[in-house]
């Protein structure tokens, strides 16, 4: 065997070919399952996509680099199940492009964060983490109080729809209006948002001020939606429902 290798080293093209074969085995093992992912990962019936406001919050989450310190994946380990709740399923992030599971945890995992704390806490915490958690090393994000730019939402929903996220034409066309209405439950458009995205979405002035639609509204709406897109994971450990 070593003699074969010794000879192969002398034939440069042969060596290149052999390296490619060896390296591609590792790649194929990881990539091949993706060819059948539509059949192997079944989407829960109750899985919903993010609302436009949550989606805008998700973009800000990515912009501010939250994923660098926070994962969104509860691992299948007993102590994680005990602390955070059921482990994350692939299907939960089927509509996430890109997914934000991550593996780096400087802060806690956020996969089961939705509705764990109040909106007011999130607002206070994002403005100045030390105001509510004295030992926190999280940076402050005081600029999230600025108005939310919703102009790209329609195009963003259209893009995601092409990637297979079930946004229909009405959702795409009303993306901007829906983002605004979700933060104003008393407004005219609120019923339409519920009709389009379901009863389970949170309709609130997330930053505490219904007059203005801010980036804070979007981020808090997104954080409060984490782990609430489907009930499927909660059936695994037979615990309560979200």
């Amino acid at each position, binding site marked *: *065997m070593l003699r074969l290798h010794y000879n192969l080293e002398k034939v440069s093209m042969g060596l290149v070919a052999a390296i490619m074969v060896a390296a591609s085995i590792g790649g194929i093992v990881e990539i091949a399952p993706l060819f059948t992912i539509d059949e192997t990962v079944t989407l829960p019936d109750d899985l919903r996509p993010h609302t436009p406001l949550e989606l805008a919050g998700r973009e800000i989450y990515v912009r501010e680099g939250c994923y660098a310190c926070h994962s969104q994946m509860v691992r299948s380990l007993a102590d994680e*199940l005990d602390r955070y709740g059921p482990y994350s399923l692939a299907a939960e992030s089927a509509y996430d492009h890109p997914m934000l599971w991550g593996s780096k945890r400087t802060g806690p995992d956020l996969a089961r964060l939705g509705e764990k704390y109040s909106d007011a806490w999130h607002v206070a915490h994002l403005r100045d983490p030390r105001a509510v958690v004295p030992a926190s090393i999280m940076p402050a994000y005081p600029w999230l109080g600025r108005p939310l730019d919703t102009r790209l939402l329609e195009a963003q929903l259209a893009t995601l729809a092409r990637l297979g996220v079930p946004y229909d034409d009405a959702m795409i066309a009303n993306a901007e209006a829906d983002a605004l209405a979700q933060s104003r439950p008393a407004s005219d458009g609120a019923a339409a948002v519920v009709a389009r995205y379901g009863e389970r979405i949170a309709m609130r002035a997330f930053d505490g001020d219904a007059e203005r639609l801010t980036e804070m509204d979007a981020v808090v709406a997104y954080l409060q939606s984490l782990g609430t897109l489907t009930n499927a994971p909660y059936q695994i450990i037979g615990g309560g429902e979200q």
Partner: protein
Amino acid sequence: MSAPRPYNAPDTDAPTGHREVDPVTGYDTTGHDWNGIRELNTPFPRIVVWALGLTFLYSVVTWVLLPAWPTGHTYTRGLLGLDQSEAAVERLREVDAVRQGWLARFDDPDFTALAADRDLMAWATPAADRLYQDNCAACHGFAGGGGPGFPDLRDTAWLWGGDPETVAETLRHGINAPDPDTRIAEMPAFDWLDRSERRELAAYVAALPTGDATHDSPAGFLFAENCEACHGAQGGGGLMNGAPSLADAAVIYGQDPGTVMETLRVGRRGVMPAWGDRLSAAEINLLASYVSRVSENGKGGRE
């Protein structure tokens, strides 16, 4: 796999056919010459070859025993049939079962009997503290001190009651939470009052804790007309409807005139999440007993 032959020892033919043995080491050289410098073709250390062989062997054994190769719609599951997800749930059940040994006592919320059992509480208090730190400390502070907008659990001021039964009920259903049985409390906005009236009212309310407020005044009448129904006569509170006493200096948003003006303008609707879905009944009772003791000994339940 056969043992590697020392193919470049002096008595074998190197695949190159090149023969130039280094007189000092007795090894072949590679045949290359870099301006008079030649390179020894030292044989590969045998221990590395063995280690490499062992890793191959290990991987083959692993393929047989553990989940390994994708096969289109499924994968080779291995003879051991291991599934990490199932193993984690199973392990969690084991941990829960051990915990139930003492936690089951909290299924029955007879808080007096529980508190009297000193052995049980010595065991349960550290666990309750852990639960508190994971779930409650974010808002109420690691020692229960609260903060602006979040109630202090160490003082004796409670909007709904600080006895364990009431705290357990608040924990289960939350306040203004998305839970059908949640407690509901809302301070409406009084932005329809004239600004001058609001300013007078704010000054009056700010003076209530110190006892300096003049009740027989226009502001006093405004208060009686608009605020008394919830906050009690002269702001004395105690109605257990979620409206605070304004006389005990424990208002969580602050009671200086500026903050009261803000409260009058926009209203308040504080939210406490419902924990009935996240925590078991016994865990909620454990926390309720812990929190009510925080209030009693005034030092975060950490004795």
